């Protein structure tokens, strides 16, 4: 009896994993097919001509440069929003914060107020303040990413044992050593998750990049948006979209690995 339950559960895991994978993979199938199709007329089930036209077109439309700019934007947002989220999360989880409810509401507000609704006002504001477009873009997206990083880090610090830090200090470690050798290693998996989410905010943005950023940074979402607004661009849109899917998948895998190492 005691052994039967886990066996039954193990048997049910396989279909569930398969379902989860299908959930992720099925939307990618038409993209993969289109990215390898030179011609795919309407009623045909599969492309009639295979080839790499979509990829050549993507390169010609500047997908390479856009990929680099998107990576930089994602990294910049992650670099600002992750430490800010960690500090706020730690304060909320481990310390007494005055007007806690209000602070929490403020930190979560950017999720409740989607960027496209306030983008015009933000543009005017940053222009009046004389902030250069690209700087304003990174700042606005970092604020949009903050709720995610705060949420992740706050949960992480809620299960965090400050005892380790106290122990280290009793043994003579300075604040710097405590941060680098105790605090950061313990928080690393959560920090990686938070940074990943912040990266995605910068990675997937369209309207803030265009309107607040003033078109200075032509990113992958801008290319996908422009190309997919016309008919007949399916192959190149598929190629650019796949280019946009790969880096987050790699980061996701890296984050998962890090979390696993941290758990060990």
């Amino acid at each position, binding site marked *: 009896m005691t052994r039967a339950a886990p066996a039954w559960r193990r048997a049910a895991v396989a279909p569930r994993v398969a379902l989860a994978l299908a959930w992720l993979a099925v939307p990618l199938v038409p993209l993969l097919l289109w990215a390898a199709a030179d011609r795919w*007329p*309407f*009623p045909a089930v599969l492309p009639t001509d295979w080839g790499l036209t979509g990829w050549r*077109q993507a390169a*010609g*439309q*500047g997908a390479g440069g856009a990929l680099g700019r998107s990576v930089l934007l994602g990294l910049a947002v992650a670099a600002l929003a992750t430490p800010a989220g960690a500090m706020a999360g730690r304060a909320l989880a481990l310390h007494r914060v005055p007007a806690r409810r209000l602070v929490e509401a403020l930190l979560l507000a950017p999720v409740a107020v989607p960027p*496209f609704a306030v*983008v*015009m006002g933000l*543009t*005017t*504001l940053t*222009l*009046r303040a004389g902030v250069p*477009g690209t700087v304003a873009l990174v700042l606005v997206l970092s604020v949009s990413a903050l709720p995610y990083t705060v949420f992740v880090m706050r949960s992480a610090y809620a299960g965090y044992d400050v005892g380790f830090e106290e122990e280290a200090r009793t043994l003579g470690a300075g604040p710097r050593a405590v941060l680098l050798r105790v605090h950061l290693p313990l928080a690393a998996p959560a920090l990686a998750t938070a940074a990943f989410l912040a990266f995605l905010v910068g990675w997937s943005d369209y*309207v803030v990049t*265009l*309107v607040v950023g*003033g*078109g*200075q940074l*032509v990113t992958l979402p*801008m*290319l996908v*948006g*422009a*190309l*997919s*607004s*016309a*008919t*007949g*661009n399916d192959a*190149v849109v598929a190629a650019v979209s796949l280019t946009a899917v790969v880096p987050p998948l790699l980061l996701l895998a890296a984050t998962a690995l890090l979390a696993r190492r941290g758990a060990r």
Partner: protein
Amino acid sequence: MRTRRPTLSAAVLGTVLAVSACSGAPEPGSEGAAAPSAPDRSWDEVLAEADGQTVDLWMYGGDQQGNTYVDDVLAPAAAELGVTLRRVPVADTADALNRVLSELQAGEDDGSVDLVWVNGENFATGRQADAWLCDWTAQLPAMEFVDPEDPLLTSDFGTPVDGCEAPWHKAQFVLAYDSADVTDPPASMTELFDWIEANPGRFTYPAPPDFTGSAFLRQALYAVAGGPDEVPAEFDQAAFDEVAPQLFERLSGLAPSLWRAGETYPRDLAALEELYAGDQVDMTMTYGPATLAQQVASGALPESTRVLPLDGGTLGNASFLAVPANAGDQAGALVVADLALSPEQQLAKADPAAWGQYPVVDLDRVPADVRSAFEALPSSPAVPPFAELSRDADPELGAGWVAPLEDGWRTDVLGG
């Protein structure tokens, strides 16, 4: 191929206009608050000032050939004049206008948008908000190649151009048929309606608000109303109530004779072209005949495809380059607009292999060698030369007509 997306940006735009109207700014379009105009200076001064500037051209980025022409042909030519041309691709031209309006509202005079590919509704909205620089096109040396009386270039979907945008391309709406299947092609829109009823299941059109399907609605409206003179260019509810019901009644009457008895329509032009290529229907249509010539040449569409010549002509329009009132690199923008209008560039982009956009310059005014080069451009058996296509071109309706016609079609023809 230009598509319009009724997006959020339109709503946002409305808000901005409302806000700027409330904030005590001069009432857009009111008397006395004249649109900002370019300083009076010699062209040499403009060229000298432009040297070293970077011009940000915001343009609809869904047309790959257009993007490639700007990057590979226009930008290198601008670089020879000392101007760096940077293309910012947008999904909707209204995005560019949104940025300009935000900057104007913030009082930013070193704007990040220097040049916009625009026509129709976005041009009209920008004019209302005094967002465009005006009275500058007369400064462009290349304007001597343009016919100053050309109605397509003096009025943009019903809005007077007034030197607030420089012409760039012309476009012509055409219907095309398979001459192997249709031996006695109709010669007017009215005859087309009769032909459809005589040949059930062999015709359809893309469902508006598809750009091409919407143009077909306007072409059919002219036919039902008795010609472009019977429909005021500026939208007018009374005129709409008079002519639109006739249009919807005619189209509803035709529906049973359409492909699949009009129960469904192709969702866009690409879908109609697939039906036509697969011989499901005998006719297709486009606002870009150069693309049609290419598709016939490449074998994507039947070799026997021919443009349908229609008595009374077809819809034509032009698109333009506009300079925002606060463009940071204004002189450079003027230099690029002049370059884009030069006979050499108009010729280069008229080549179907490059972009296939029809010229706005008057072939009687360009140098003889350019004129003969235009005449030597690869011709297509499917598509007659532009001079023939654009004979009796019908002016486009004002932008205000588009949405009511599309809404009416949805409720009265599709739902009726």
